[in-house]
Structures are given as C-alpha cells and as structure tokens.
C-alpha cells in the first residue's frame, strides 16, 4: 500500500506530536525523536512571512526560522532534519502551538502580556510600528490631520484598537471604515472612500509598492503604536527557548540577520519583484542589540 507521501508525513508527524506531548518531554527531544520540526508560518504577513503558492513559504521571519531549524539540527547532532511548514492564521496559531502541531511559529505574532499566559516568545526580532498611509495629494501629514476624515483599517487587527485609543486620547472625530482584508482596506483608500489607511508600517509599505502608481501614496506622520514581533513556541520549555534565542543572537552577531532584513525589505522580492523599501528602524535595531522578550505593554510610544 502506498500512501500519499505528504499524508504519511503528516500522519507520522502528528503521531509523534501526540506521543511526544503525552510524555511531556521537551520540544528538542521531540525534534530529535521524530527527525522533524514543524514551522508555523503565515500566508500573507507582508515581507515577514508569506507564500508564493504551491506550498512555498518565504519571508524575513520564514528564512530566519529555517536558519534556527538548521542550528538546532547541528546542536542535536542530527544528520537529517525534515522541515515542514504549517500555515497558521491569527485565530488558530496559539492553539496549534499549544497542542503540539506547530513547534515554532515565526510570522507576525505580537508578543503581548495576554499571550504570554498561553505561550512563550523568542527574543523580539522585529518591531512593528503602526503608521498612516495616505494619498500624496491628500495634504494629511499626521494624526491631527485626520480630524473630520474617513480612516480605513482592516478587521481583525490590533490597528483598530490603536485607532480607537488615539481617537479617544486626542478627542478627535473621524469616521472609521473597515476592510475585510488588507487589499480591501487599500481599495477603500484607492477609491477615495477613505482618506487614510492606518496599519503596520511594513504592510502599508508593501501595499503601496504594489499599487498601480506607488508615487501616489505616502506614509506620513508619527508612529501610532509599537508592537514587538517574535517567534512563538510552547510555554515552559527553557531548553528549546534557549536554543532558539542562541541561534538568533548568533545571526545578529554575524550580521546575517541584518543581511536577511536587507534582502526582504530593501531588495526586490517575489512574486512581483517590487521593493518594500522600509529601512531597518531604530526600534528593531535596539531589540537586536538588547535581546529581550518584553511584551507590547512595556513598550512606550516614542
């Protein structure tokens, strides 16, 4: 009987996942015993992690996760390590890490205090900044310029909350519209239904770079929110966490992480060979220089 190889792999992986978890042993032991690691990834998280279709996953955090996996392979002295990818969504990523389906999730997960109750985070490797994208001709230069305007953002993102807090703090009045995904929100801006689009800076930069005429759009004004993005793994597994952090720190020291950043954020990337064009921010540089797992709540706005 010849089972489909992917199915077999998935079956084997899940059997190992269940037994490994039942024995309550660490992730490193599970990886060694099964000869496989499951990386959680995203299908569309800007240049951080995305798919090219056909089961191919790429991006800044995806490449970093692959390097972590190969470092772990070396540490465990394994001759072979099978790397499988499990695409996750913001709804299922935490349960999938908790139940052992995914060993290490490197996508666009914000490290916050609420999630630290359920999962552990590696050191912060990217600091996301909430920004405002607007048409270059709009005359909006910052949050103050949004008074009386219509502001778009995407349902199911923390930007909605950011907007709500800013609105309340500044005592401003603007109308909010919500796109069902980033492309939809961008369409609201493009078609003139919205005057501005508030979202993570790298997503805005990516969308604008793929627009019909990128020069028509501009990221303006102050940073509205700061969120540390980090790889996520099971809680209470210090050995695995240490292995992951060591691997990342070695990449920082050797300059490899900076090279990866340059590759995904400054150079033309697939599928359309466009540049995101978002230079390494001071906040991200600081996170690399001082490895930490501070949750979002401990970051102050600049």
């Amino acid at each position, binding site marked *: 009987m010849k089972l489909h190889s992917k199915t077999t792999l998935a079956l084997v992986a899940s059997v190992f996942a269940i037994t490994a978890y039942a024995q309550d042993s660490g992730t490193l032991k599970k990886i060694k015993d099964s000869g496989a690691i499951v990386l959680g990834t995203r299908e569309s998280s800007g240049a951080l992690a995305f798919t090219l279709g056909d089961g191919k996953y790429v991006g800044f955090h995806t490449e970093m996760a692959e390097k972590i996996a190969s470092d772990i392979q070396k540490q465990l002295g394994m001759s072979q390590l099978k790397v499988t990818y499990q695409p996750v969504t*913001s*709804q299922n990523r*935490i*349960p999938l890490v*908790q139940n052992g389906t995914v060993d290490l999730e490197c996508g666009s997960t914000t490290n*916050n205090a*609420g*999630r630290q109750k*359920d999962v552990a985070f590696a050191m912060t490797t990217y600091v996301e900044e909430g920004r405002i994208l607007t048409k270059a001709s709009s005359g909006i230069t910052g949050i103050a310029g949004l008074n009386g305007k219509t502001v778009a953002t995407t*349902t*199911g*993102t*923390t930007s*909605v*909350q950011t907007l*709500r*807090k800013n*609105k*309340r703090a500044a005592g401003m009045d603007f109308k*909010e*519209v*919500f*796109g*069902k995904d980033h492309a*939809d929100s961008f*369409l609201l801006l493009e*078609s*003139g*239904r919205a005057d501005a689009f508030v979202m993570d800076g790298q997503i805005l930069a990516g969308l604008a770079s793929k627009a019909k005429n990128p020069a028509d759009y501009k990221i303006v004004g102050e940073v509205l929110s700061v969120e540390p993005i980090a790889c996520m793994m099971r809680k209470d597994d210090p050995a695995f966490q240490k292995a992951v952090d060591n691997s990342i720190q070695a990449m920082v020291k050797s300059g490899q992480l900076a090279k990866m950043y340059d590759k995904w954020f400054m150079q033309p990337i697939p599928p359309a060979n466009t540049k995101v064009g978002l230079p390494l921010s001071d906040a991200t540089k600081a996170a690399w220089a001082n490895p930490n797992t501070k949750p979002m709540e401990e970051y102050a706005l600049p």
Partner: protein
Amino acid sequence: MSWDWKVFFQDTGGGQTYLNWMMSAWGWTLLVSACSLVVALVVGSIMGIFRTTPVKALVWLGNAWTELFRNIPLLVQIFLWYHVIPSIFKGLQAVPDFVAVVIALGFFTSARISEQVRAGIQALPRGQRYAGLAMGLTLPQTYRFVLLPMAFRIVIPPLTSESMNIIKNSSVAFAVSISELTFFAMQAQEETSRGVEIYLAVTFLYFISAFAVNRVAAVIEKRVQVPGMIGGGK
C-alpha cells in the same frame, strides 16, 4: 486550555466593555437582518407573483430578477454594491454602508423568496384561478382574494428557513464595515487573545436569534392555518 470569561468585562480602550460592544454588535446584526428581510419579502413576493401572471413582460422581469440575484455569490454581490457600482455612478458613493448591505442581502434573498412564492402559487390547482376569474374578479382581485391567501400559507415553512438564513447571512455585512457580530468576533478575538470564549458567545447569540425567528414563525403558522385546508391538516 483555561477559560477566561472575565474578558467580556475588559475595557476596549474606547470607553466601553467588550460585553457592551457585543450587545451593540448583536443589535446591528438584528437590524441588518430585519431590514433585509422586509426588502426581501416585499420584492421577492412581487417578483414571485409576476412570474405566475399571464403577462409575458412581467414573467420575463420576474425570471430575470430571480436568475440575476440567485446566480451570483452573496459576497460578490456585496462587493458589487459597495465598490463597483459607486465607482461607475459617482453619486452613489454617498450611500451609507448600511443601505448597501441591506440592498445586497435583501435582493439576494428576494430571488430565493420569489422562487418559493412562485412554487406556492403554482401548487394550487389551476381551477382556483379560473374560478376566480369566472366569478367576475379582475386578475389582481383573483390574486388578492383567491390565490395568495392559500399560496402564502403553503410557503410559510420555506419562508421561515429563509428568515433564519438571513440572520446567518447578515454576517457578510462585516465586509462593508458594519460592526455586527462577526465583525465583533474577528476583532475582539484579536484584541483579547480569547478567541474561544468570544466565538462561543457569538455563536450562542446567532443561535438564539435564528431560533427566535423559528418560534415566531411557528406561532404565525399555527394562527393562520385553515382547518381542513392546505397547511391546516395536522
């Protein structure tokens, strides 16, 4: 995993709790559903009746309407009403989101109701129509006093399903930025990281809303039944 139902008493950062927000979202769901149902029932009945008249132009109109709105997916229709039509007719950009979604959901469901009303009318023996006309009633009078009273009784059960469907289908309103239950669920689970609790609560609200419609329809069905006739033979 651990439960944390206290999440509903957290502040959203906008001066209200998630519970307040969920209740207002529930209100939007019910409002969208109710308005769409009115549109769907009125338009659907008219189109269904048109399709059974002897007037060719009306039959054509009813058929065209039904096939147009029944063969395009609901989410695509919402997109058309919200993005495409206003970009062709610039003046329509000012139409509120709420109206767009009520039109989309109402017209989509009207196609289904038109089909059911047509089936109800055609289920009646042809002799009833002839008898009405032979009595000297005009065509509209025949419909009003002979055909429709029985046809509507026949189609109460499928109309009940349609009314319950409209509550569930109203979830597409999140796509045009109406802050109804599905929108609330997607947003609140991201903000609180307590997806399971949020989705369970929202599921429960959808269930009781649809079930309430079901019970109301059952009462109506019982009240209007005619002993010894179609729908009254239980």
